[in-house]
């Protein structure tokens, strides 16, 4: 059966746990989405922007040096880091910004953690002439000040959020409050496969192009499907984006790589699939990091994009069904992978994507040489050089 069902459920997960004020807007959004996604003109516009503006299709690159070094499976990189803006996020923001235009909205708002979704929203809003305001935790505005400046340069206003843990979770709360208050002219452009129905569906629809391209490309290069696909998981948009096309290919093992932070056992991590329990946050029923009373815990990761105490409902469902394998990678392992990919291939991965690279470094040596792995290299690492320098004790 095609998921989600008509209540927005993926098995028990998902749904629409929103204040009544937003419910009619979510219903309208779902109607518009279902209408335009089938509309030829909409599809033509989106295809145009993805090709001419975002730079799609992205290459599937054989990482020969890394593969030789690990002496196991052949490793391919799906180069989403080469999408305009430096991450896969633009696939979704272009799709949703075009939808917002079609719906007659003049203003888009977004939440952002690492700033990648905020930047991608600012880019899409600038090119499509929409007013753009981005909510970002004050903690993150410090960690990712380059992205704040990039957004400002593209005429987006960044609104610092000083409540709660001052990170992505609280930026999301604040963006929802804004939407509640400005529902007439505002489109809330969610950046991941999370939130109330239909957002997990909408974001999947606009990100599934990653897997569609990757499947075609690997069949051209190898003449067979990959044995494993690896993607980092914060909310899960790049993971769903590359996994979706392979879900029915049961022999392809799908690894969802979460932020292990300082180690799952320390409690300082962002691994909701590996260590979370079921609950409701941000409009969805999913795996969450929470205490026994249901208070949401503060997550932790060196990578701001994975620093979120929840995960998209479809990933919770797929993990429960055993279709994806949730694993976690610590800060230190991700940093190592960041250095190794930079050295061996001349490609600096985003710290988020470095988690997927690190998992491949663990798995590839145990695989045969004619087996293949695709890593979704979801973003580039330029934004992270200050964080990496600090972690390595280098004074820039």
């Amino acid at each position: 059966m095609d998921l989600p069902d008509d209540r927005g459920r993926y098995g028990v997960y998902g749904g629409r746990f929103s204040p009544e004020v937003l419910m009619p807007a979510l219903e309208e959004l779902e109607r518009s989405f279902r209408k335009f996604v089938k509309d030829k003109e909409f599809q033509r516009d989106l295809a145009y922007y993805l090709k001419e503006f975002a730079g799609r299709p992205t290459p599937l690159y054989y990482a020969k040096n890394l593969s030789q070094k690990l002496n196991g499976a052949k490793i391919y990189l799906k180069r989403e880091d080469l999408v305009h803006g430096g991450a896969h996020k633009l696939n979704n923001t272009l799709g949703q910004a075009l939808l917002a235009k079609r719906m007659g909205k003049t203003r888009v708002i977004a939440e952002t953690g690492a700033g990648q979704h905020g930047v991608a929203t600012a880019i899409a809003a600038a090119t499509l002439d929409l007013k753009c305001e981005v909510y970002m935790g004050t903690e993150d505005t410090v960690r990712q000040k380059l992205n704040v400046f990039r957004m400002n340069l593209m005429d987006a206003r960044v609104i610092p959020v000083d409540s709660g843990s001052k990170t992505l979770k609280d930026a999301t709360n604040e963006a929802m409050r804004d939407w509640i208050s400005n529902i007439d002219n505002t489109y809330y452009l969610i950046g991941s496969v999370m939130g109330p129905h239909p957002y997990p569906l909408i974001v999947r629809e606009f990100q599934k192009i990653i897997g569609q391209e990757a499947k075609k490309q690997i069949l051209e290069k190898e003449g067979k499907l990959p044995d494993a696909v690896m993607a980092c998981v914060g909310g899960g948009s790049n993971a769903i984006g590359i996994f979706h096309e392979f879900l029915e290919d049961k022999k392809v093992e799908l690894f969802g790589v979460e932020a292990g932070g300082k180690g799952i056992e320390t409690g300082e991590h962002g691994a909701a699939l590996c260590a979370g329990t079921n609950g409701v946050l941000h409009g969805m029923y999913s795996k969450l990091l929470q205490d026994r009373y249901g208070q949401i815990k503060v997550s932790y990761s060196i990578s701001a994009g994975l620093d979120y105490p929840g995960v998209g409902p479809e990933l919770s469902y797929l993990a429960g069904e055993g279709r994806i394998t949730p694993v976690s990678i610590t800060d230190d392992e991700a940093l190592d992978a960041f250095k190794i990919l930079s050295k061996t291939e001349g490609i600096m991965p985003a710290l988020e994507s470095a988690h997927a690279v690190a998992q491949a470094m663990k798995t590839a040596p145990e695989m045969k040489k004619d087996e293949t792995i695709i890593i979704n290299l979801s973003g580039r690492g330029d934004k992270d050089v200050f964080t990496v320098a600090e972690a390595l004790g280098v004074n820039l």
Partner: protein
Amino acid sequence: MKLKEKFSELKKKKQGALIGFVTAGDPTPKDTQDIAEAMIRGGIDILELGLPFSDPVADGPVIQKAGERALKAGMNPDIFFEIAGKINGVPKAVLTYYNIVLQRGLDKFCYDCVKTDIDGIVIPDLPIEEAAPLLKACKKHGICLICLAAPTTTESRLGKILKEADGFLYVVSVAGVTGARKELSAQVTPLVKRIKQKSGDLPLAVGFGISKPEHVKEVIDAGADGAIVGSAFVKIIEENLGDKTKLLNRLEDYARELKSATLK
């Protein structure tokens, strides 16, 4: 006393209901009983106690901060029900977010409400489409699930909501979050009139942005059966954190002022 009895009693007296909200545990759990009793002395007809959640998306800054203070002071659902059980004199409702109810267990949460004489549950992030499991538990225990309607609520949604609503209908005055506003939205009177045509005997209480006696009067005049005041009370707590005597006096006085505006 039950919510329904209170509303019919007030109707006979030709009064609207003043429903007073504070976050339980703010500033500390040991203050909540005194605070509630001061408001009851001042004349609130129904007490709505907030059980704080870490991520309250429907709340503005004043109630968010109250929740943060309470959680920092160690507030949790176990302590909440202990405190709630000690407050008497008016019907009580609890306002919290769905995850808190879910983690306690729907049945256990309702059972705890019965034990502590809480008659109604308000959950701002539980729309009618997702409410079936909790409705079932509420019916089993004889607790009212207080549903919300907003200015954006369509006629077809209103029909679904009214079918299940119990105790009273919580009418959200404005498309926005909780918090005091200088003026009431011009939408309030037409909204109350629109809902009134369909709501039959179910009492309507208007909340969000009601902070002054003239607001209370306006919603009662529009035909509502009650007015819900939250952030204005919580703001008094925030402004008097250092002086409990003054805090309690001001809460009592303000409740009295607001209550006088409910007389028809």
